[in-house]
């Protein structure tokens, strides 16, 4: 009984941390491998392994549904992404601290708006990148192993004189 209570408290604590800390919590020192430095950053929930064994998966009953009721159509999501980016960034210039906060808040905002559209049984992953414009070159690529019929993605971009921004949303159907 007490073990379960401790476990529940740890998980709850971990959940709280997850909501407030940043993606780039460095958990290891950078190591030099020849001419490169590799730093590892990962979700705070895995840091320190608060609970070594994962909670066992809850077994859900069969829904007997093969297809999602509402398909994740990228043409419907793309205008939403574009709107959010323009709303938040049209009056901004690049500033390191502000853009760090902005990227987190924009990704949160996009995710919340998509949740409001009620895509049932879809898991949403939303990534936002904001960069400074300094005549540098940048290349962004992404590949996925998923169900090509049911899963999809949508992306949007925005640029002004001092910054550029890219947002990508992936929607994956949970069978």
């Amino acid at each position: 009984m007490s073990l379960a209570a401790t476990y529940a408290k740890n998980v709850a604590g971990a959940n709280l941390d997850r909501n407030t800390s940043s993606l780039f919590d460095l958990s290891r020192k950078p190591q030099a491998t020849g001419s490169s430095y590799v730093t590892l950053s990962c979700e705070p929930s895995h840091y320190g392994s608060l609970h070594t064994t994962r909670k066992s998966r809850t077994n859900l009953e069969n829904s007997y549904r093969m297809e999602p009721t509402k398909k994740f159509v990228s043409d419907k999501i793309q205008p939403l992404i574009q709107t959010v980016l323009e709303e938040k960034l049209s009056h901004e210039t690049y500033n390191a601290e502000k853009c760090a906060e902005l990227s987190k808040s924009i990704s949160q905002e996009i995710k919340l708006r998509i949740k409001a559209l009620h895509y049932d049984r879809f898991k949403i992953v939303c990534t936002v990148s904001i960069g400074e414009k300094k005549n540098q070159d940048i290349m962004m690529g992404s590949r996925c192993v998923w169900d090509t019929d049911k899963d999809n993605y949508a992306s949007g971009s925005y640029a002004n004189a001092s910054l550029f921004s890219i947002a990508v949303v992936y929607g994956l159907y949970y069978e």
Partner: protein
Amino acid sequence: MDDFQSGEETAFVVDEVSNIIKEAVEGAIGGNAYQHNKVNQWTSNVVEQCLNQLTKLGKPFKYIVTCVIMQKNGAGLHTASSCFWDNTTDGSCTVRWENKTMYCIVSVFGLAI
């Protein structure tokens, strides 16, 4: 439909994934200086190598792998992600790699089926 064995075998193991990513990046672009005409190929190579190794793990996961390669110019870049998923089974891992001429940031999201 058979039940998958829950526990360590079907969890998203961050250390394992981060090693895969590091090896993929080192193999694809380690020791190279930034070259505009090769960046496209490099991004594809990194991502494909990551995905191949991840699928070889044989876990019941869907993977999303993102790679950003940026020339080192003194410019700043911020990346954030927000996910709506099952915290107990899904996870992500991001590895940041750099050398004298470029940055490479690879993110892997693993979502349980």
